[in-house]
């Protein structure tokens, strides 16, 4: 234990020395090292990497198309139990390692393709919320006064609702569908980014290097974009990573209620919802999509926690 700690301390010292020599270029390298030193963060990163690869190479990995109906092509019935040849399933039967769904589609192929939907959705939701939220937060923090007051009270109102409830209401206005679920979840998550960004701006704008820039004649835009925003990125990166997890979870919830992706889209929440009435006869069709959601959300959560620990070593969680 002690020896490992010593080694770590040595590593940190070495990296810091390195940092001085290379003129600051090593900050992300240092963060990366700290990140790789924590098991949970590494597990999270591995899960996310695997999922991204799965999404990119979905057509290669999946034995069938996500919407390919196998009626008449193979000897399978709807809601067939999983059949894995090496686990003792009759080799005469076609292999469906997660069984088939109610429309005789290969469940495994749909799960693989579902990664595309969920990851894209998580990414775009967070990007949208991050852009809008941090812009609002930065402006509110920098301009201050009545503008700050109005923006932050609006954010308080959004936070005053249970987020799923507000998302449901927004989707009801926009109409059910994947894009609208994305927009709804993005709106619901804007306040978190706005608040963090505003707090960062408030603390950073009082620092000496900002005063120095101002004394050198930099205007508000330059100060915000060149000085404040880069220094406020750290907590936002962590928040965005955790935000992907929340977005995927909430989108799955909306889809489960029939407000998100619509059939036949291979989306995990939708797949689960359309088979929930057959839970007692074909539990595998509910188990696999839900398990996929859980693993994905877990991956992003662990990665976010790891990033937070790595970026802020003073937090000894």
């Amino acid at each position, binding site marked *: 234990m002690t020896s490992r700690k010593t080694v770590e301390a040595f590593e940190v010292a070495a990296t810091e020395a390195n940092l001085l020599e290379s003129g600051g270029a090593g900050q992300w390298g240092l963060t990366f090292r700290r990140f790789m030193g924590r098991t*949970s963060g590494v597990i999270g990163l591995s899960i996310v990497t695997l999922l991204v690869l799965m999404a990119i190479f979905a057509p290669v990995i999946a034995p069938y198309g996500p919407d390919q109906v196998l009626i008449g092509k193979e000897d399978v019935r709807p809601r067939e139990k999983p059949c894995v040849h090496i686990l003792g399933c009759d080799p005469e039967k076609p292999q469906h390692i997660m069984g088939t769904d109610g429309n005789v589609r290969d469940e495994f192929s749909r799960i693989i393709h579902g990664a595309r939907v969920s990851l894209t959705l998580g990414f775009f939701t967070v990007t949208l919320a991050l852009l809008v939220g941090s812009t609002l937060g930065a402006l509110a923090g920098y301009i201050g006064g009545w503008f700050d007051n109005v923006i932050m*009270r*609006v954010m*308080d*109102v959004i936070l*005053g*609702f*249970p*987020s*799923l*409830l507000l998302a*449901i*209401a*927004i989707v*009801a*206005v926009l*109409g059910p569908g994947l894009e609208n679920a994305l927009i709804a979840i993005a709106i619901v998550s804007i306040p978190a980014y706005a608040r963090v960004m505003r707090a960062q701006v408030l603390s950073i704008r009082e620092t000496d290097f900002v005063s120095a820039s101002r004394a050198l004649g930099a205007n508000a835009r330059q100060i915000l974009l060149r000085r404040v925003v880069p220094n406020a990125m750290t907590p936002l990166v962590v928040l965005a990573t955790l935000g992907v*997890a929340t977005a995927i*979870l909430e989108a*799955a*919830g909306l889809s*489960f*209620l029939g*407000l998100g992706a619509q059939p036949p889209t291979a989306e995990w*929440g939708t797949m*689960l919802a359309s088979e*929930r009435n057959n*839970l*007692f006869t074909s*539990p595998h069709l*509910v*188990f696999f*999509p*839900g*398990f996929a*959601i*859980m*693993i994905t*959300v*877990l991956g992003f*959560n*662990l990665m976010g*926690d790891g990033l937070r620990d790595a970026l802020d070593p003073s937090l*000894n*969680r």
Partner: protein
Amino acid sequence: MLAVPVLIGIVLVVFFLIRAIPGDPCTAMLGERATVEACERFNEANGLNEPVIVQLGIYMKNIVTLNLGESVRFSRPVTQLIIERLPTTTELALSALVISIAVGVPLGIISARKHNSIIDSATMAFANIGVSMPVFWLGLMLAYLFAVVFRGTPLELPPSGRLTAGVFSIPYYEAWGWHLQDGTFWSKFHEYIGNHVIFNSFITAQWDVWKDAVRHMILPAVALSTIPMAIIARITRSSLLEAMNKDYIRTARAKGAKESRVVGLHALRNSMLPVVTIIGLQLGALLGGAILTETVFRLAGIGTALFDAITGRDYAVVQGFTVLIAAIYVIVNLLVDLSYGYLDPRIRVK
């Protein structure tokens, strides 16, 4: 108080958001082929012919006088709907909260006391999985496990509903032979309290009903409690770890206080502030999760009613229930603020 403008903001947002939903309530309720005259009568009866600003005025006045209007979809007053539906959600959310605190806080304490041990890692792994769990999936899996896999064993639990068909909970006022006048405030009040099935059957000693109601509540409550439980365990752990490094802990140890006293009295009380805050915040998550949990377990609570109302453009129900939820929020956060004074005397002095 800052809560009041936010509350007004919520009321306004709900009012305009629900009116922005495409399609009008008439066709939503009477069907696509409703005649113009029928719609006219319908709008007249529900005050939908007035200009929006007048509707807003009426709506504000009604909220202040606690007249929440009439549900178009369920064709009864919204207050009656609250009397029928809220108790289920309350019992569900409270059971979930009790489970999450009863398990989450001890888990966090054990984890912090055995910092960096296997127990600690296992607890944190459990907490990480817990926050990543889709509530509806967990609910369905629990339903399958306890209703199908454990069928016929003592562990079998019902997967849906509030009571087994044919089992009725006799309200306490009837069981005790009270004579309540119909339609008065107090009869409504007692009806509301009596609809808390678990509580009602307990105080009237209807043990078979009580057992049935509790058995129905176990699975939804456990499913709903997972996320708050995981969050509470994490916060308790990190907060206690921080408190254990403080000077007053060293002082207490130096004075020769027993470890149980050091942890239980000095550290724990001081580390409870963030825990209480997070418990208050979890209420929102519980109400949101209640929509999914009630859907999975087919419970007639406010979550499912609100979902039906939003998708069915039932203005009065959406407005009334949202104001109700927002009010619960504000009250809970007020209670959380008040509890700070108890936990930290320095705040009381200010």
